[in-house]
């Protein structure tokens, strides 16, 4: 028993698991309609979009050197607009449009990575700049010259496009089963099992030692920023399909929530430390919280506040337990 307690306090993933179970139990007992198959499965589809961005932040923050990607929300938006405009206004084949959208996401991420790695400008500054540039580009793309100079959302998609965001397989939302879970598994293998994952943790925990050990630091960093772009793009595609509309303001504010979840999940802002299990639990906890509060009739404006409280509260609780155990 004592060993289990030790594990909970020392291992952030276990700690989050316990927090998740408690939160789940509280909502299941006190909130009506929470513990139903429909709600539980429905809830997961909302976690996917923010979750993909949190995974992107995890990769970038792990790479160290002040790694952070503030542009994920803007990359999401721009990809949503590219896919929307190509399908809805240009009339391109949806598969091709989605392929182009995802490629654009990777391209933007790659550009961030190159700037961070080769110019040595701080990631905070590079991605703050690209946050605004990509956001503007999204607005420009959204302008439909037929209706004057203002950006316009796109919402005339063929029925087949909604499959990803609105259909279910065996009751489980398509994007959870066929995109989110595979992405998590792939990233798990990448981080925990692959050579690249080892290099990533090495670069994040000591850049100099990584260089002296024959690791190509720049290549590792460029790769994670590119992956961040791809994950943001996936998120943009899914969100467009789910709400059946490509809106030029859709990703606003997502970047900080994504960073918060990554940090909540135990990713050290200094880099080199943090496990994907923790981040997945972080995503689960936040999704649970948003959903439970909504069902309990608490107004949406409390959502972001609760996110902050959970972040500080969980870290504080963890520290207090750790301090007590050491006494």
């Amino acid at each position: 028993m004592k060993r289990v307690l030790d594990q909970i306090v020392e291992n952030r993933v276990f700690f989050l698991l316990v927090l998740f179970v408690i939160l789940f139990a509280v909502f299941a007992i006190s909130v009506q309609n929470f513990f139903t198959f429909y709600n539980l499965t429905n809830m997961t589809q909302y976690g996917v979009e923010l979750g993909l961005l949190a995974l992107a932040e995890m990769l970038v923050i792990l790479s160290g050197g002040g790694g952070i990607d503030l542009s994920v929300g803007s990359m999401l938006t721009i990809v949503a607009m590219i896919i929307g405009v190509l399908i809805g206004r240009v009339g391109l084949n949806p598969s091709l449009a989605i392929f182009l959208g995802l490629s654009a996401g990777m391209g933007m991420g790659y550009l961030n990575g190159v700037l961070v790695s080769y110019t040595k400008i701080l990631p905070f500054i590079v991605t703050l700049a690209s946050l605004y540039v990509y956001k503007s580009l999204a607005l420009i793309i959204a302008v439909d010259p037929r209706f004057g100079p203002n950006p316009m959302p796109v919402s005339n998609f063929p029925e087949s496009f909604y499959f990803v965001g609105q259909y279910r397989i065996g009751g489980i939302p398509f994007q959870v089963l066929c995109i989110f879970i595979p992405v998590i598994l792939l990233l798990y293998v990448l981080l925990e099992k692959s050579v690249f994952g080892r290099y990533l943790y090495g670069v994040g925990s000591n850049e100099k030692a990584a260089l002296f050990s024959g690791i190509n630091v720049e290549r590792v960093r460029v790769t994670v920023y590119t992956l961040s772009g791809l994950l943001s793009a996936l998120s943009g595609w899914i969100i467009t399909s789910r709400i059946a509309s490509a809106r030029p303001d859709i990703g606003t504010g997502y970047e900080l929530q994504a960073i918060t979840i990554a940090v909540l999940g135990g990713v050290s802002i200094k880099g080199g430390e943090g496990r994907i299990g923790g981040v997945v639990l972080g995503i689960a906890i936040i999704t649970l919280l948003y959903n439970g509060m909504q069902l309990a009739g608490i107004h949406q404006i409390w959502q972001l506040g609760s996110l902050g409280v959970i972040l500080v509260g969980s870290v504080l609780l963890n520290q207090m337990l750790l301090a007590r155990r050491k006494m």
Partner: protein
Amino acid sequence: MEYILECRGIFKSFGGVQALKGVDFTLKPGEVHALVGENGAGKSTLIKIISGSLLPDRGDIFYMGQPVRIDSPRKAQDMGISTVYQEPLVYGELSVLENIFLGREIRTPRGNIDWKKEEEKAQSLFTSLGLPYHFLREPMRELSVGLQQLVLIAKALVYEAKVIIFDEPTAILTEHETERLFSIIQKLRDRGVGIIYISHRLEEIFRIANRVTVMRDGEVKGEFPIEAVDRAKIVELMAGKLLVEEIARKRSRGEEPLLSVRGLTKKPRFFDISFDLFPGEILGFFGLVGSGRTDVAQSIFGLLAPEDGAIIFNGHRVRFASPEEAMRAGIAYLPEDRKVQGLFPIQSVAYNISVTMLRELSRRFGIVDIQKEQGLADRYVRELNIKTPSLYTRVYSLSGGNQQKVVLAKWLSVTPKLLILDEPTRGIDVASKSEIHNLIAQLADRGLGVMLISSELPEILKMSDRVIVMHEGRITGVFEGQEKTAENIIRAATGERMVVSGGVGA
């Protein structure tokens, strides 16, 4: 009052190591007293005691005839003892004027800083030292290191320093800056300031010192007026009768050189470096910090790009653009700064050992074979006798000696042909040190070429088959056999050009 500063019978130990064993040191007003000795002789400890950074275990210090207890650097400065370090400690964003008067600001009656008076005072100070003063309002970081040092001297004068300690001030100065510093030191001396001057460059000492004290192993080995001593005598005292037993070796040096370096140059760090290294040989590189040894090693390993010259490794002319390439060719480099350059402190022991071998340990799609990884780590933990609770312990919790063995294991696992070791035993315990020494000897016996860089003379003498000595970026001596003595090595390291047959001893 004959002496301004008098230290009597100073003892100081760190852990079990006796750093100072009853040192006497005196300083008269208006003299330059040079302090010389090898690394680890105790100079720095003595200086730290005088400047208030350390308290002695035993012994008395008298300042202007009164017994004193100097328990903080601040107190030393207030008393009139200032130190000018090799790397000036400055506030780069503040102006020169602010740096000079920091903590001793001149105030107007209303309590504001009186910039005008400060500037006037600084101007007269700089004029009296024969220096320009147009940069007083500029940020400190805009000044060269040499000028920053001079500003700190001015600051010492603002604090009415009666004793100024110079800790290897010329190590990073240009020739011109050095000359200017000397003329200022002479002016200070003429004003009656007592100066303690630490340097490894013996020629400087003969130029500006009035007295010289030689330290070795925490003791004063001699104190002379400068007229009463010559270079040879000082070197002899510094070296002492160093009794070093050479490590047992199976001499099995190969016929063809493993590494040939010809005319390698990267200004201003090193010039025209040429040497051969044979398989099975331990080639020692001795020199003071800043003599260019590490830069040469890093150029071979692909971390620095040399401007000129050739590197022939294993029969091929090479120039590695990155450590990755050098590693693949069969070169390993154990860096001098273990914590910063060698280790991934928050990662596990297994991780730290296997990180250079991951590609070889992986199966398809770049997936690491965890069994093989464990096997490799486990083998080296046992082979090098690394004391760790488990393979998954984070490496920062190990002792320094075990950490260093982990870094060594990382490099041995790539089975290199050439092993470059940069200060392999710095700061680790005696037992680990001798284990590492035995290991290096074994590796060389197995046919590895070893380039051993060390600032520790006993280590160099014990381990090396041949010794190359560097001074200010040049090879000043190559010694082997009977010639490989402490005295010869120190003479070459302090700038005397010795047997240099094209630099390629064989």
